[in-house]
Each structure stands twice: as C-alpha cells, then as structure tokens.
C-alpha cells in the first residue's frame, strides 16, 4: 500500500458536506469530496468528467492545528444594481492546518504527485477563494493512510507549537473505515459526480481514531501539569 501525504494550510479553508441553501457550513476536518475534487482538478478533469480511479482512494486526516471557525457574510447583486439577490453566510476554518493521507495504487499516486506540482486547474482548499499556502505535496510513503499519519511529526506552524507549552501534543485522526465498523459515523461525503447539473454524493463511513501523540519540537521549559486541558491529562487514569 502506498500513501500520498498532503499538507493543507491556508489563512481560510472550508470543507462543507452538509450545507443547505444560503447557509454554507464547514466541517472541522477536510472532506473526501473536497480532496478528491482537488486531485481531479490537478489532473485536469472537468466537473462533468467521470471520476473513475479517484473513487478508489482512501482518506485519513490528522488535525495539526484546529483553527477557528469564522463566519463570512456574503451578498451577491446583479451588475449595476445595489439590492442583493442573494444573501448567504459562509463558514471557514481560519488558521487551520491538516495532514491528509491519500491511500491507493502507487502508479495513480505518482501521477497525482506530478499533477499537484503542475496542476491543470488552479487549486483551492474547499472554496475558490482559498488557495493553498506552502507545499501541498509531502511525498509518497509506504503503509496505509492511518499508519503513515501515526508516524508523522507535528506539522503545525512554529508559533502554534510554541504557544502549546507542552512537550507532547495529541492530534485528532479521522479516517475512512468499512461500513460495518461499530463506531463508524456517516457523512454524505463520498463523491460520485461533480457535474453542476447533477451533483451526487454517497454515504461515507468515517471513524475517529485514538488521538496520535506527537513530540512538540518548539517546547521550551518545564512541563506543567494543567487541569485545563482535561481530556489529555485524564489519559493517565487509563493506567490505574
């Protein structure tokens, strides 16, 4: 098994899977639909083209930096008029960084890596106004998506790691799983067609894995025991 690692970072990014009408939401992690769309755009597939082998990819996402939810108020008016015909609220994740691992056939992933270096269409993270910052492609690795993410160092921005003030951090991991899995959650996020006249998604089963523990290379000083970070510190109770 081979996995392609992507680092998704931008001042604003948005991954919607459940938006309705004028309220455009974002999930707290990148969606499979958004990432398949990004890869398809890099390859040069039009929205009306079939997705074929991209549908066989498996995705796992690790949250390096959660970011904050931002709400953007947007109006659209016809040219020359002042009264808007459309008023919508769009949500974004600001200041977030994610590591996405895409697992699949090695040849396909090598082709995708090349496509990301010279994308056919301009790339964006969820919405067109969110171009990615920094290097998207972080190489091909052996192993499954979850294994690769378990071994990666912390890819958050240096200021965030410094502000964390702890020697180790716990990062959330969300991955594709089999539909029969007991703790699976369902998201309408399995893309079938991006054709603007008939967009289609099917149900995707995702599993929240145990958080991955990583070293904080920007930690300076003594570890402090902090009860503010309840969930993390209570982990030691498992040993009792």
């Amino acid at each position, binding site marked *: 098994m081979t996995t392609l690692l992507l680092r998704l970072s931008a001042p604003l990014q948005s991954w919607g899977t459940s938006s309705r009408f004028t309220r455009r939401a974002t999930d707290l992690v990148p969606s499979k639909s958004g990432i398949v769309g990004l890869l398809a755009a890099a390859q040069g597939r039009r929205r009306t083209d079939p997705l074929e082998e991209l549908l066989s990819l498996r995705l796992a996402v690790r949250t390096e930096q959660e970011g904050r939810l931002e709400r953007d108020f947007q109006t*659209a008016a016809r040219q020359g008029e002042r009264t808007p015909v459309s008023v919508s609220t769009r949500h974004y994740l600001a200041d977030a960084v994610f590591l996405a691992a895409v697992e699949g056939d090695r040849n396909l992933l090598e082709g995708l890596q090349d496509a990301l270096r010279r994308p056919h269409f301009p790339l964006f993270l969820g919405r067109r106004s969110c*171009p990615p910052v920094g290097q998207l492609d972080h190489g091909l690795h052996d192993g499954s998506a979850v294994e690769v993410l378990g071994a990666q160092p912390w890819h958050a921005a240096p200021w965030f790691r410094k502000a964390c003030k702890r020697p180790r951090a716990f990062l959330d991991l969300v991955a594709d799983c089999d539909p029969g899995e007991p703790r699976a959650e369902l998201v309408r996020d399995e893309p079938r067609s991006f054709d603007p006249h008939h967009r289609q998604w099917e149900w995707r089963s995702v599993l929240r894995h145990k958080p991955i523990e990583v070293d904080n290379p920007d930690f300076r000083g003594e570890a402090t025991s902090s009860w503010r970070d309840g969930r993390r510190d209570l982990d030691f109770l498992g040993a009792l």
Partner: protein
Amino acid sequence: MPRTIVDIHVLQTVPPSNLNRDDTGSPKTARFGGVVRARVSSQAWKRSTRTAFQSLLNTAELGVRSKRLVELLGDEIRRQDPSLTETAPQFAKDVLTAVGIKTTPPRNKKDAPEESGYLVFFSNRQVTSLAELAVEAARTGEAVNKTEARKRADTEHSVDVALFGRMVAEVTDLNVDAACQVAHAISVHAVENEYDYFTAVDDHKQEDVEEDAGAGMIGTVEFNSSTLYRYATVDVDRLQDNLGDDKAARRAVEAFARAFVLSMPTGKQNTFANRTLPDAVLVVLRDTRPINLVGAFEEAVTGQSRIAEAIQRLASHATDVHTAYVERPLAAWTFGPGERLAPLSALAERGDVDATIAALGEAVAARLA
C-alpha cells in the same frame, strides 16, 4: 501549448476605513498566525475588479470576429448532435435570427453558408450555448426563444463570465469555471477594530432657541486601518479555452491586471475617503502552478515601518519559496512608489503600471501564439 499562469501580489495600505463589513456593520476580520487580522473578502474585491474591468475592456476591440456565423454555429450543432448534419445551417440561421443578426448568402460564392452583414465576436462558450439552443429547438420542434438567444449572445457578459465566473447563478453559466482566482485580502499585521461615535445635528432644531442642545441622531461606525496583502491569479490557458481567441485572452489579462491593482471596494468610501493606491505590486508569470505568498505574513508584522517590513518580507519569502521548491518564474515585474520597493526590484523588473501591463500583455501573447 506552454502553460501560462499570472500571479499578482499587492501590498496596499488603507487609512481608517470600513471597506467591507459583515451583517453587523463591523469590518471583516480573520485570524491568521494566531492574531486577528483585517480582511476584505475575496468577493468584495472581485466585484470591484469586475466593475473596473468592464470599463477597461471594450468588447468591440476584441480579436477574432467573423461574419461566417452560420458556418461557425452549424459546425458546433453538428458536433453536438450528428443527426442534425443536414439541417444544421437552417437551425443556425434560426438562432441567429432570434438573436437579431441577419444573415444573407455571400456574394460570388454559390452554395456557401450564409454570412452576417458585420463582424461579430463570439467566444467558444457562446458558440456552444447558442448551438445547444438550436439542438433543443430541433428536439422539441418549437421556435428558438428570442430572449434566451439574446442573453446567450451577449458578448460583454461572456468575456466577464469567462474570467470571473458566474456571480448570480444563471443556468446558462452553470458550466463555467472562472479563469481567475482571488484570495481573501488579509492584513499583514494584527488589527483591532475601533469605534467612531458620531452625532448628527438637526439644523432646524439647532436654530430654534427654545430647543435643547441634543443631537438629532447618534450612532457608531466601526472601522480599522491596515496594510493588506492581496493576491489574485489568472489561469491564462483556461481563459483562452473559455474565450477561444488569443487576442481576446491577452486583452482580458491586461484589463484584469489593471482592474485588480487599481480598484477598491466602495464600502463607506464617502465617510472615510479611503481610496489609496498600492504600495507595492509584484506580477509574476509562471508555467507550473500559482503560488500564494501569504506565508510571508503568517507571523504578524510588528514594528514601526510596517510597509517597508512587509515589502522586505514578501521579497525574501518569494526567494525562499522559489529556492526550496525549485521554481523558476518566467518573468516578474514590480512597481510602486519610492525607494521602499528596493527589495522587490532585486527580484523583478521595476517599471510603472503601464510598462508592466504592456510587458505582461506581450509575454502572454507570445506564449499563446
């Protein structure tokens, strides 16, 4: 055909102002690098660029125009529906009549398809959508809808949509992907919104001696001031695809660059008179992928000489990114007032706005040819 991408980076300072506000009247903000930054949404600046663009580009000057419209449309109809091979010219003529273009048989050429009386510019997309109209008319047996045909034949709208994409969802524009991408503009430093408390004096009441000295109306206006980093990219190949004509693509790129750099959203402009021009502009021509340099400002700029530091950071980040990822831009130009621009003029050819846009147009035209 070689790949052509135009990246435009702008550093622009605005004085106390409220260019773009949300539903509560506050200037828009975003957190980046852990601090709150001023933000002007991508849609706000895209709209003002779009408005300026339309006044800069005279569609009458666009490149390939033809009289052989029946032939042009006929071929597309045949491509979409091969069963209409024989009747394609007739349907093409019907659509053109619905649009309001009269066609007559050309002189001295027997059996040649009819031509219009004057030159008309139709982008690829328009030809496709007009042909779709004809195919539908053939299928349903009804006459071609005049309003629909006229809408699809609107060239100004077409060039605009090819570059910016649809703004208000229209079914005919559903399949268009914009050739340009505009990012949200964010400030390079941390920003705090401030309030201006104002009163409005009731003149009549003021003149009346018996009345109290109270104001007629009181309120607050929220504002901030910032140095914004703005970024836009034009995918020239996609634009040429959408328009179907090299010369039109070149003119559109030039007009877009000028409109993006010089325009500004009009929010609260009468209250604050905030129309400024950019402190620094960097235009980069590349052949691999668009590269956004906002990473230069992830760590917020602090210090007194903010603009100079921002320019320095932009230049060094650009150099670092190009070195790390082995990117070699095809060409780069920069312009802006004063000596502060020095770090950028080490990376790019320094000129003025007209020289840069002319050079950009030439370079784009050479690559499209």
